[in-house]
């Protein structure tokens, strides 16, 4: 991109720098019937960017299921909305901020949170929870025990860089969300080589709104005033959307000025002022200025209402002098909104913003023409039919080509399983691995309790849980994705992402009802990437249909490539569920010794060949063996659905003391995690099923949940499970203090829970070499 922000004349070079192909430029000329002005070229370039237009993904996204009796608003608005009963609705969405977070981790992540929060309160909903799905490159140089590891040792400099990206992203999220005053309920933090130069920062937010108070980003009513509110417009973030639609190269660092700077204090004021302005009843429509700023809100609000917006740039509050129309229209300065008020009632709106000390200026009016018209000093600087920017934007059915990951589908010959007598060291190692260890270091930096609704915060349950004040209900939410599985099999991996996040929600006792997705991929112009994308959409579609969680919105992030190297295809699913009675919430933690342990299992375990092939996609293969092979675990969606229904019924029957799903690290890790909070141990007696003990302990078979219950309830739970066709095998009991696992009568794991917990709880800090608080507390403390 040119350092000159307002080029003087349009040349083929300038067109290219705007990310537009010669064909696209020709289409612009045809749509306008003339050459565009430079401001118009800028407007087309952002509106037609992949980020705003979804030009590569749109043909595929149409396949996603988007309806159910709960869905009030599906994709196409700022956020999806579902009905949760008692007159309440909830708006939620997930969005990526990957590219800015790599270039400037703190501000990139902070403004990611800011953007998704605005999407929620634009709809009239007060944000009540956020979560994040984060993916980074490796933060340790461990490569497993393999003599011929698939992973190469990452250079120390890269590990340091990954540390600083992680630190920056987490503190950026913390600084924004904490000041804004929304609880962060966690999410996921994962590490994998492919995210080293392409971290993923996907921010999720959820808000509550009364059904009758929902607002839409739609303008209407000729002559109605258009009001600009919030922060002043500066030169920051120009071409952010275009930047998000390109691969990274060595020169990407130079794009730091394209990253916006956030001010959470201003956003908090904007929230309160917008909700208060909406209460006056004088607001007709409202949209935030996110990607593509004033351009996007001006044309989209008009387009949705089949009217036009005419704005005069001289009236736009500006932070700097001498800004050109090009710069004003393309600025991505944060914390701004555009709203349409009812004519004659603008003073009511302006008064609210004045009370909160915010700029609010009438910058234009609604016109009876489906056109966006931009003036400066009374002269038209851009006049574009809205459909040209929205409906007429290019849509590509890009070339697809079946692709095979360059890995063996069978277990490599040098791998020996089933020979070790004691697997305790391996369990230790897994519990301390970056993907499995406690993420306390991350989430203690987030305010997880503000608003006094948090029933289950981060690091506790499988899902975050907040109560809905004034009702008995609670909302559960979980984020999940597994890039490695999608790399091995995009469709099956995507089905797992839906199944796992829905299962996490179900483990809290809630019924999953809807989902949002964030689709992170490489360059869509490469046929194999496009094939991965199409496969993932197919997988999400199937799983969402089977599990009855329609997609209500989300976001696609392409071009996650650096120097031609793409990330794993990484769909992240956010599932929201409704828990009718908050007192019936379930937790993963064992409560006391002497309880029975049951393994609820949807599918039958596979045979030796299957188990070995699937074991290659596990955390054990990655972390302990340093290898990757095979396939993701098999998944039968009907059985998964049955398992989740069974779980809901047993939890609601009040017979379950704890529930935790089997995921990364397999059954052994799952049970260990259940032990940690209350220091209650467990003894498992497993049948070997003629499989190596490693597969029994650390295999990541789908559709499994460990529950604990009173001995008296075992029969009842088994009867309930039978009704759903779900197996409920008694696998052991809780005991005091130790975790012991036996396979076919032989002890393979035996360790005090405190020891395992220590390994799990402190691993992330140790990896990051952070100073422990103890060392930093000054010696002024005296015993008193």
């Amino acid at each position: 991109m040119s350092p000159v922000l307002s080029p003087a004349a349009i040349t083929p070079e300038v067109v290219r720098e705007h990310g537009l192909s010669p064909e696209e430029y020709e289409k612009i000329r045809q749509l306008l019937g003339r050459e565009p002005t430079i401001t118009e070229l800028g407007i087309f370039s952002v509106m037609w960017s992949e980020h705003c237009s979804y030009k590569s993904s749109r043909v595929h996204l149409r396949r996603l299921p988007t309806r159910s009796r709960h869905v009030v608003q599906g994709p196409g608005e700022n956020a999806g909305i579902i009905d949760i009963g008692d007159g309440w609705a909830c708006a939620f969405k997930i969005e990526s901020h990957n590219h800015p977070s790599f270039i400037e981790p703190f501000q990139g992540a902070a403004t990611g949170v800011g953007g998704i929060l605005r999407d929620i309160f634009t709809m009239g909903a007060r944000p009540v929870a956020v979560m994040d799905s984060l993916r980074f490159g490796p933060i340790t140089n461990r490569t497993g025990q393999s003599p011929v590891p698939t992973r190469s040792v990452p250079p120390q400099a890269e590990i340091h860089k990954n540390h600083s990206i992680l630190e920056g992203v987490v503190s950026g999220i913390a600084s924004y969300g904490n000041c804004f005053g929304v609880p962060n309920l966690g999410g996921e933090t994962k590490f994998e080589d492919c995210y080293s130069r392409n971290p993923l920062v996907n921010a999720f937010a959820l808000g509550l709104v009364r059904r009758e108070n929902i607002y839409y980003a739609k303008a209407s009513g000729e002559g109605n005033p258009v009001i600009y509110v919030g922060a002043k417009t500066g030169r920051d973030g120009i071409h952010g959307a275009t930047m998000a639609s390109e691969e990274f190269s060595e020169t990407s660092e130079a794009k730091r000025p394209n990253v916006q700077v956030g001010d959470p204090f201003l956003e908090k004021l904007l929230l309160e002022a917008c909700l208060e302005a909406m209460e006056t009843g004088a607001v007709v429509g409202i949209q935030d200025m996110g990607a593509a700023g004033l351009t996007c809100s001006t044309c989209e609000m008009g387009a949705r209402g089949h009217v036009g917006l005419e704005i005069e740039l001289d009236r736009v509050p500006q932070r700097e002098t001498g800004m050109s129309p090009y710069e004003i229209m393309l600025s991505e300065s944060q914390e701004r909104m555009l709203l349409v008020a009812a004519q004659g009632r603008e003073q009511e709106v302006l008064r609210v913003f004045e009370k909160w000390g915010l700029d609010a200026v009438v910058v234009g009016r609604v016109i009876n023409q489906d056109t966006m018209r931009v003036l400066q000093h009374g002269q038209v600087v851009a006049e574009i039919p809205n459909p040209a920017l929205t409906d007429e934007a290019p849509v590509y059915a890009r070339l697809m080509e079946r692709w095979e990951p360059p890995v063996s589908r069978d277990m490599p010959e040098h791998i020996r399983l089933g020979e070790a007598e004691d697997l305790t060291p391996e369990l230790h190692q897994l519990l301390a691995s970056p993907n499995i260890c406690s993420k306390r270091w991350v989430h203690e930096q987030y305010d997880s309790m503000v608003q006094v609704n948090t029933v289950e915060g981060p690091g506790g349950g499988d899902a975050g849980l907040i109560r809905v004040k004034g009702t008995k209900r609670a909302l559960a939410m979980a984020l999940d994705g597994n890039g490695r599985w999608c790399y091995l099999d995009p469709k099956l991996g995507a089905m797992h992402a839906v199944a796992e996040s829905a299962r996490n929600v179900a483990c809290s006792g809630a019924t999953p009802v809807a989902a949002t997705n964030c689709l992170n991929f490489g360059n869509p112009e490469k046929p194999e990437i496009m094939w991965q994308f199409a496969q993932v959409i197919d997988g999400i579609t199937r799983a969402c249909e089977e599990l009855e969680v329609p997609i209500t919105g989300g976001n696609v992030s392409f071009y996650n490539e650096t120097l031609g190297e793409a990330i794993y295809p990484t769909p992240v699913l956010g599932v929201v569920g409704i828990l009718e009675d908050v007192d019936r919430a379930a937790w993963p933690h064992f409560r006391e010794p002497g309880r029975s342990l049951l393994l609820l299992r949807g599918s039958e375990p596979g045979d030796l060949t299957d188990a070995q092939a699937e074991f290659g996609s596990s955390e054990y293969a990655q972390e302990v063996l340093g290898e990757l092979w095979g396939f993701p675990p098999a998944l039968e969606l009907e059985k998964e659905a049955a398992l989740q229904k069974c779980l809901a019924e047993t939890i609601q029957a009040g017979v379950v003391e704890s529930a935790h799903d089997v995921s990364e690290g397999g059954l052994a890790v799952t049970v260990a995690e259940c032990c940690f909070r209350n220091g209650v141990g467990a003894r498992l007696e497993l049948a070997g099923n003629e499989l190596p003990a490693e597969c029994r302990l650390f295999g990541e078979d789908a559709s499994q949940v460990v529950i604990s219950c009173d001995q008296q309830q075992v029969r009842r739970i088994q009867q309930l499970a039978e009704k759903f066709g779900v197996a409920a095998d008694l696998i052991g009991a809780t005991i005091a203090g130790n975790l012991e696992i036996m396979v076919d009568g032989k002890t393979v794991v035996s360790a005090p829970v405190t020891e395992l917990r220590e390994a799990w709880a402190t691993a992330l800090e140790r990896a990051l070499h952070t100073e422990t608080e103890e060392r930093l507390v000054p010696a002024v403390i005296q015993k008193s």
Partner: protein
Amino acid sequence: MKFGVLVFPGSNCDHDAYWVVSQVAQQPVTLLWHESQELENCDAIIVPGGFAYGDYLRTGAIARFAPVMDAVCKFAKSGGLVIGICNGFQILCESGLLPGALMRNVGLKYVCKPVQVRVENTDTPFTNSCRQGEVLTIPIGHMDGNYFCDQPTLEALKRDQRIVFRYCSSQGEITREANPNGSLENIAGICSEGRNVLGMMPHPERASERELGGTDGVKVFHSMVAALALR
């Protein structure tokens, strides 16, 4: 008996305090805008947590100049009950209603988690429902909670038993490990000479309802209600 909760631009625990006073302590309560000149006959004032004025310059540094703070200072000087929670504590220190200052946590990071505090003095309007030495579990959530004051002030605080809460272990021991932010002598809360003004970093409103995991914090609000009833 009426409670008033201050609302500064950037306050974000104002509604939480309002909720707990109205729904849990079941007392009349009103929100007081930062520009108001008077306290609408409130009998107790809550300076809530959050990021008043974005915490720009320094936590509480701008909030102390808010018009409503003049009224709060007058109210406090005439013996009115004032509790500052988290950012509220910082504001009360900046206003001179409480001595000392709250510096950046020693870990240099925001910390949000439940902690234990020991009740050091039950002879205050904020702790009269607690037992001496009782260990309460109440969450913290702050970046600047590292209490500091000079030696003479510390001596005075100790002499007059104005240290109300100290961070402690679950057994009630005052240890270095139990100190989440590096506070001088594990101080988590102090009161004014007249004992009518309290500042504390932990959030009692976040530990006031069973379904949110604990009710130790509600004792602070119940104590205030009891103290006001005696007036």
